[in-house]
């Protein structure tokens, strides 16, 4: 195993090598404080406002992918082998503004301008990887991670509709541009061996080999696994948690795989939420709304599905759906592997059936079963980029006689862990799926959970909404004529 201690990434066309920095230095701190590139802004330092958005270019399947991410919670240590694009990178060779910048100028998309570099970078992602004529939905999705307090977004939406109005001569990043040089450059930077970055009382290991990772974690069971860092970044930034050892899994190529087999989809630990959802949506289109409302585009580009599951927050959004679908997790410790139904992983508040040094090697999602009805609903104060007050998921199979053959109901935001509604399930099982059964199940839900009151919602609200979401599922599953979701009206 070869060891080295540098971070190499492409910046403005040149390979940039970083050594000797604290491994928890964020990309934002590095840009602003070390490089004096102050175009990228800090608005919150927690991934919520998008002022710090930068774009990462990565090689995938021989193509370059452009992914907006939040620089404020991402460690520079995770940029190895990638290209970092910041707002300063966009000037044309003749000094002109990039089309996304010019569109914002022409449509008056900036007022105070503080959010603007972040919007520029999210729009760059849309411009390079999105549809040529983005509709409102595509625009909202691309901008879901950017807050603007001044404009009301209207002029930014208009600008987003006009990105392709401009020529691409002398523009450093444009759709369909010849990328062979960029590809070659990135290929030359492929990480290998294990990087070990040491800072003041902090060490970060970044192996590239899966077995090496497993071994390192078994040897350092006290280490904190780092995946996309969308949770961990905040622990460092906001909570100042004392963590002395990080084990970064994002450089392990084998972890970045989605496999389809007889059991279903097997999603590896480095697979981003964006990629995971894309694969899951092919199987379960009912996940579409949850996908859109899960964090934001840049958070989904960094964060992983396995990380969401492994973090195990009671308000994590993927777990209710995954539990309802009967997903399993594959855990690995050294060379030992075992599998659990996902709901069995969660023991109590932030406590899991996972021993030190054991990590989530995959989330396995079964293929849809014929006749299965499935839905998941997220409820939050704001439609986009908000944390759930309640998130419910429902999977139902009816027998030929119309009776409930199998039903799995799971909620987030209702208990100390993501949790199945055992009472409600029992109230439905074996009965015709009718109004009487629904009423019993809604009543039973009250006994399934004792939710809390916090800034997001009161316990009473959570209880009532949990029951109401079940009735929405019933309405949709039994086929009502009138729309029952706001998203159907937009």
């Amino acid at each position, binding site marked *: 195993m070869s060891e080295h201690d540098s971070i190499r990434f492409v910046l403005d066309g040149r390979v940039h090598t970083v050594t000797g920095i604290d491994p928890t230095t964020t990309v934002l701190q590095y840009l602003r404080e070390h490089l004096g590139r102050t175009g990228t802004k800090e608005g919150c330092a927690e991934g919520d406002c998008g002022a710090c958005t930068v774009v990462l270019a990565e090689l995938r399947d021989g193509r370059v992918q452009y992914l907006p991410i939040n620089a404020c919670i991402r460690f520079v240590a995770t940029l190895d082998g990638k290209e970092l694009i910041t707002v300063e990178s966009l000037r044309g060779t003749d000094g002109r503004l990039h089309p996304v910048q010019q569109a914002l100028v022409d449509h008056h998309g*900036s007022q*105070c*301008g503080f959010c603007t570099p972040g919007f520029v970078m999210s729009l760059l992602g849309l411009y390079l990887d999105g549809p040529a004529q983005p509709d409102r939905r595509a625009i909202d999705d691309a901008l*879901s991670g950017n807050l*603007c*307090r001044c404009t*009301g977004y209207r002029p930014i939406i208009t600008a987003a509709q006009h990105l392709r109005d401009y020529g691409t001569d002398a523009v450093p990043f444009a759709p369909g541009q010849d990328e062979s040089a960029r590809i070659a450059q990135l290929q030359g930077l492929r990480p290998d061996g294990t990087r070990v970055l040491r800072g003041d009382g902090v060490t970060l290991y970044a192996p590239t080999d899966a077995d090496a990772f497993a071994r390192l974690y078994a040897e350092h069971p006290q280490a904190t696994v780092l995946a996309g860092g969308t949770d961990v970044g905040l622990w460092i930034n906001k909570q100042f948690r004392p963590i002395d050892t990080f084990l970064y899994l994002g450089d392990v190529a084998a972890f970045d795989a989605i496999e389809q087999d007889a059991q279903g989809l097997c999603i590896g630990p480095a697979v981003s939420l964006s990629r995971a959802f894309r694969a899951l949506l092919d199987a379960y289109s009912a996940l579409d709304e949850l996908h859109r409302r899960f964090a934001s585009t840049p958070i989904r580009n960094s964060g992983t599905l396995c990380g969401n599951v492994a973090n195990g927050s009671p308000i994590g959004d993927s777990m209710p759906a995954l539990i309802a679908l009967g997903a399993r997790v594959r855990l690995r410790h050294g060379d030992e592997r075992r599998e659990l139904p996902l709901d069995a992983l969660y023991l109590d508040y932030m406590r899991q059936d996972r021993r030190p040094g054991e990590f989530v090697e995959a989330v396995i999602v079964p293929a849809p079963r014929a006749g299965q009805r499935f839905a998941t609903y997220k409820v*939050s104060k704001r439609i986009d980029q908000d944390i759930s007050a309640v998130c419910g998921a429902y999977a139902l199979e009816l027998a030929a006689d119309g009776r409930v053959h199998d039903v799995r109901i799971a909620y987030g935001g209702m208990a100390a862990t993501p949790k199945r509604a055992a009472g409600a399930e029992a109230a439905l099982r074996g009965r015709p799926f009718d109004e009487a059964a629904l009423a019993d199940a809604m009543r039973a839900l009250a006994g399934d959970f004792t939710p809390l009151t916090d800034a997001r919602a009161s316990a009473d609200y959570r209880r009532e909404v949990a029951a109401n979401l079940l009735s929405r599922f019933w309405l949709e599953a039994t086929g009502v004529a*009138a729309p029952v979701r706001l998203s159907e009206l937009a």
Partner: protein
Amino acid sequence: MSNAESITIGRAREHESAHLHVSGEARYTDDVTAPAGTLHGAFGLSRIAHGRIRSLDLAPVLAAPGVVAVVTAADIPGENNYGAVVHDDPIFTEALVEYAGQPLFGVVATSHDAARRAARRARVEYEELPALLSAREALAAGSFVLPSERITRGEPDARIAAAPHRLDGEYAVGGQDHFYLEGQIALAVPQEDGCWRILSSTQHPSEVQHVVAHALGVTAKDVTVEMRRMGGGFGGKESQPALIAAAAAVMARKTGRAVKLRLDRDDDMLLTGKRHDFWYRYEVGFGDDGRIHGARLLLASRCGYSVDLSGPVNDRAMFHVDNAYCLEHVDIVSHRCKTHTVSNTAFRGFGGPQGMVLIEQVMDEIARHLGRDPLEVRRANFYGIGERDETHYRMKVEDNILEPLVQRLATESDYHARRAAVAAFNAASPVLKKGLALTPVKFGISFTATHYNQAGALLHVYNDGSVQINHGGTEMGQGLHTKVVQVVAEELAIDPARIRITATATDKVPNTSATAASSGSDLNGMAARDAARKIRARLAAFAAGQAGVAADAVVFERDRIVAGEREWPFAALVKAAYLARVQLWDSGYYRTPKIHYDRATFSGRPFYYFAYGAAVAEVAIDTLTGETRLLRVDILHDVGSSLNPALDLGQVEGGFLQGVGWLTCEELWWNPRGELATHAPSTYKIPACSDWPAEWHVALLERAPNREETIYRSKAVGEPPFMLGIAAFQAIRDAVAACGAPGCRPPLDAPATPEAVLRAVDAVRAAGR
């Protein structure tokens, strides 16, 4: 000069910094290269809402890595205060804690992070005291920051008693965090001979200058404050930046080094003031047509622990409690409640919105009670022309355009047909319900503190023909600098590209007012015009002399000056004038005419004029969860003769959505111990992109010059559109009402969060059973 031949006035010019915003080159305070060796500060905050400090042990803070110094009240050589009106805001509190999040001390360290980490290490022992957290609690306890005020007009009690219909009720509206994207920040740089240079993200450089001087025990002449641009202000950078700047200066004084104090978002939200939340009680008597015969209105606001700007904020709430409606017999009582929470402050509208939401709620209540269309009730109460045209503070409404504006909007938005369509939808839709509402805005323009209505500018024409303009206003995104450049370009008839506008600085224009009350371009545009006219007059006199014609025969047009037979490019004339020893720089000054107002009797003409607008909002609600969606908005807004329609439209759209956020998704939530739990964007939700409706029609009212002689007959636009957001709230209320029996009065307070909406839906359904 008329608009017809205008060079830049009325054109949709881009923001003067747009190219810098999009390229990341625009420098905000944190982006300016700081002097070598600059240190970084952070505040140590109290953890309790109310109590005495028994002991404060800062040894662990000092011992933390990177820490250079700690500062407390004892390190302040001058006055430990940043309150501008009443001196009751300590920079660092000494013995008494009055809200959770109050600064106790400061840490200075080698990095921003080190300072933040160290600040948490203090060991503080408190003797906790009971805390009053809400306006209602404080009202019951008789706890106020200022005496209560009252305006009574006519004979409200008798009129209410005699009215055919009567209603009473209670209502409440939440506060709002400014959530400017750029947090509070200041950089204090010690200079020679006891002088100071302060970079501050502030709407009020002069106040920062004074507060810093007083804290340091020096005078205004020793402190220069500079401000190029803010990443948003919205009123949150009117009085609050003085705290940040003064603390940074105290830290810099103690360490002898430059200190940057940039608040982390959580600290910013915990320790800076917000929009006042209000609680109301009302009683109205009205006729069959919905016209109010008499009203009694009680307004109680949560001011927080100190006075700050609560006086004028609550005054403005009282002034605006009429909105568009003539209240002939009315009694208005305003309580300014003292609570153990952060001291609330200016926020776009400055209390006006909190007055207007109340009367809009009352209008809706009356309409529901009578079973009439709320729009008809509103129109029945509009101010008249030539009759019913005096406000409750004795000002004649001379520029009333409510009726034509609202009529036009109702027609163009198809209000009546859509009301029927909404009803049809609701009849067939058990789960989702739609609602529709049209609400008007009438907003008074001028600072109610009359002396604030003055401004200065400084214009330099260099002898190469390039121009610098400086004025006392600050740029926070609203486009003030763009408009001022337009004014100067227009007056000198030159290409705006010749003109550079420079950072607001207290050593260029002194004694400036806050850039607030929407007055930025009204005041500073006029001051800049005054300066430009002086220069122009001198250039004209010089050219006239050269050409042997009268000065008024000299024509300025598009970078050229023509006098009789002679003609000069602008730069050439300037050069010649310089050589002939003509003064090419000057100052400009303006004070708003006509206004006067007697605070003792709450009467006079506090406002130079009114700005008008109206919005129609259509929403849908989900009766299973209480979630809402804004589906469509139609807006018609009055900016007089627009100086720049692109910028004005930006203010209208942005203000509207910010108003919607205030009344829907933005909820400030304190736990029972008085700690604000929503102190970051993860928990405090301002509108996101998808909250802008799928369909919108937003227009400026055309051919509507200001009756008053404002700058090119334009009207102020910063604040008025904020209140257009009330339409969205009333539309939600309309949708909730659709769940109940006809005539039901949904018990819905603002913000209409999903939880609040669901509770209201449940209530009207239960009542209908």
